[in-house]
């Protein structure tokens, strides 16, 4: 039923700002653990285990969490670089979960990804012009647009056309990330997945790229799925935020609500752990220092996955998995049996 024809139709329809562009329903991505001579499966890493969210055209959803929480696996699964175990991925109203490679091709024109490491994600043997123009060649648009489009793209991201003749090693980290952004924009996509796009960059360069991403979003009505571990960057760029822990969403909501009044103990602990660049906040903030490490995703705790590190945990938490529901009627769901509204004193002013 889902022929290449419908896939092309999906790709060509341009959405209005606010229309739903991406919906992920109960997504699960598990990886087998194999061992022994016969490579028999001895376990599963439940990297993503039942995640649902939606994203509107022109909007930014920030996915935040620590290493191993599954945020990058979501990026790869949504791009269909990794196959989901269960659940649905709906792009512009079309279920792309079972799409073949050929069917995905036109969809990928509309959906691009930018990776963290600008040093390993660019082919060192290709000139910048070839790197940025590659998507145009792959999709058969080089002849009509070609050089002019590459020059335009380089200009959009703040590089000059002369840079096209050079190779990736001649550029600094920030400039390489600009090249990655130019390539992602080549096919005029509506959704860009950004997987830790500024984590490898120095502070002064990070701000340049963050500003560039915000400007491009306004200019081209882009929707961003912005994945990062840096809570400050996520707050700055996102409209809505989802906090992940061990393959599940712990809390989600408007960026303001989630940061100002988190209700999940993990979100509260995470926010309180970020050192603030203000010496006056020292000692005034109530810091929640969590005990222990994140459990292994191949053998997650029963019930609530956070309970092994949670100071509120009771028997109920081990028995019953808390649902991600709006417990206070303010459109800001959290997956905790004992969710509590707690205004966060994240600034020195708030703590005073």
């Amino acid at each position, binding site marked *: 039923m889902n022929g290449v024809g419908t896939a092309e139709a999906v790709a060509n329809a341009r959405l209005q700002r606010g229309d739903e562009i991406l919906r992920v329903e109960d997504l699960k991505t598990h990886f087998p653990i194999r061992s022994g001579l016969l490579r028999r499966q001895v376990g599963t890493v439940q990297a993503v285990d039942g995640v649902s969210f939606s994203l509107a055209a022109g909007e930014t959803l920030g996915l935040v969490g*620590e*290493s191993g929480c599954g945020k990058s696996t979501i990026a790869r699964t949504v791009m269909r670089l990794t196959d989901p175990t269960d659940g649905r991925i709906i792009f512009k109203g079309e279920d792309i979960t079972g799409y073949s490679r050929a069917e995905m091709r036109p969809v990928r024109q509309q959906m691009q990804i930018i990776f963290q490491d600008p040093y390993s994600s660019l082919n060192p043997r290709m000139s910048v012009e070839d790197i940025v123009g590659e998507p145009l060649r792959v999709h058969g648009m080089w002849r009509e647009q070609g050089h002019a489009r590459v020059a335009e793209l380089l200009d959009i991201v703040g590089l000059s056309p002369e840079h096209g003749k050079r190779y990736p090693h001649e550029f*600094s980290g*920030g*400039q390489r990330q600009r090249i990655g952004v130019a390539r992602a924009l080549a096919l005029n996509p509506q959704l860009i997945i950004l997987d830790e796009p500024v984590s490898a960059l*120095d*502070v*002064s*360069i*990070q*701000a*340049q790229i*963050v*500003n560039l991403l*915000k400007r491009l979003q306004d200019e081209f009505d882009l929707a961003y799925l912005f994945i990062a*571990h840096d*809570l*400050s*960057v996520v*707050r*700055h*760029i996102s409209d809505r935020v989802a906090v992940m822990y061990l393959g599940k969403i712990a809390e989600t909501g408007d*960026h*303001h609500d989630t*940061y100002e009044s988190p209700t999940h103990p993990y979100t509260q*602990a*995470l*926010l*309180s*752990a*970020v*050192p*603030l*660049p*203000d*010496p*006056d*906040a*020292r000692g005034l903030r109530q*810091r929640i*220092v*969590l*005990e*222990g*490490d*994140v459990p292994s995703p191949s053998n997650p705790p029963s019930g609530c996955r956070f309970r092994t590190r949670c100071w509120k945990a009771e028997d109920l938490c081990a028995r019953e998995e808390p649902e991600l529901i709006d417990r206070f009627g303010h459109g800001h769901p959290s997956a905790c049996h004992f969710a509590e509204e707690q205004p966060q004193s*994240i*600034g020195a*002013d*708030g703590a005073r």
Partner: protein
Amino acid sequence: MSVTEPLLEVDGLSVEFDTPEGVVKAVRDVSWNLMPGETLGIVGESGSGKSVSVMSLMKLIPTPPGRIAAGEVRFRDRDLLKLSRFQLRRLRGKDISMVFQDPMSSLNPVQTVGRQIAEAMSVHDAKLNDRDARKRAIELLEVVGVPQPDVRFKQYPHQFSGGMRQRAMIAMAIANQPPVLIADEPTTALDVTIQAQVMEVLKDAQKEAGAAMVLITHDLGLIAEMADRVVVMYGGRVVEVGDVRTVFHQPRHPYTFGLMASLPRLDTQTESLPTIPGQPPSLITPPSGCAFHPRCRLKRDRADCEEHVPPLHKVSGEHFSACHHIDEMEQLIAEVSAEVGTDLTRGDT
């Protein structure tokens, strides 16, 4: 000894590396001192020379290609740079200990963690017998918050998680109660909740050993939280130094201000971030005069920035800035604040 006597004094340190592309001037004329019991933060971006300057103190840079071109490092009336490698080895771990970013590469993978901690003590104390060393090592693991220290004592580094390994490194670093503790990006490889744990441990360990600490990091948040004084580095040089509150609230170097202003905030959301334009300087052919001049808004086409390296001018008390135009900083901060619509003058006192 009077209380105001510095414990460690770095004076005019310059470090160079020979590379096929030319001589990399990684550290140029860097001076600072460390007072007993204090925490001195050294902050800068990659290539600012913050790590190299501190590694050179203990001659931990590879020579060649590295070379200490000039300078003195005074510790207890001795110049560390004139000591032999053997003499330095006796100092390392006993008088000056280090904690590095990556504990996996600083721990021996084929020896148990406990044995390594015990050995860190017995090399400096010939009279220490195995049983006492073991007992003390288990105590140390407990101090740094490793659960079941007697079990962990017998385990190998790969059986430890990243946060636990860093705790073990800290246990080893404080084993001999050294007066100076050097921590080079100790939590950069860790997640934020684990970072919070390790920083607590580091603070407690410092207190336990009564040590002064040099904390090297790119994270302004960590500096604000941990340091008493801060040294800001750019392009291999010190550009600003002072009490942490003064430097954060009244930065008097355009780079320090630019760096702080460009950080996204956790407590508010702004429309756009004030940025520092351009790229970090080349260390092989650094800009003439002030290394920051090609990216600086205060330069305003003035020749002095290009011609003369600004010395560290006294701003007030112990606050110094290497800028020719310190008196225009307030105006600059006001200008940038107006542009982004956020008040960036944080403190007035």
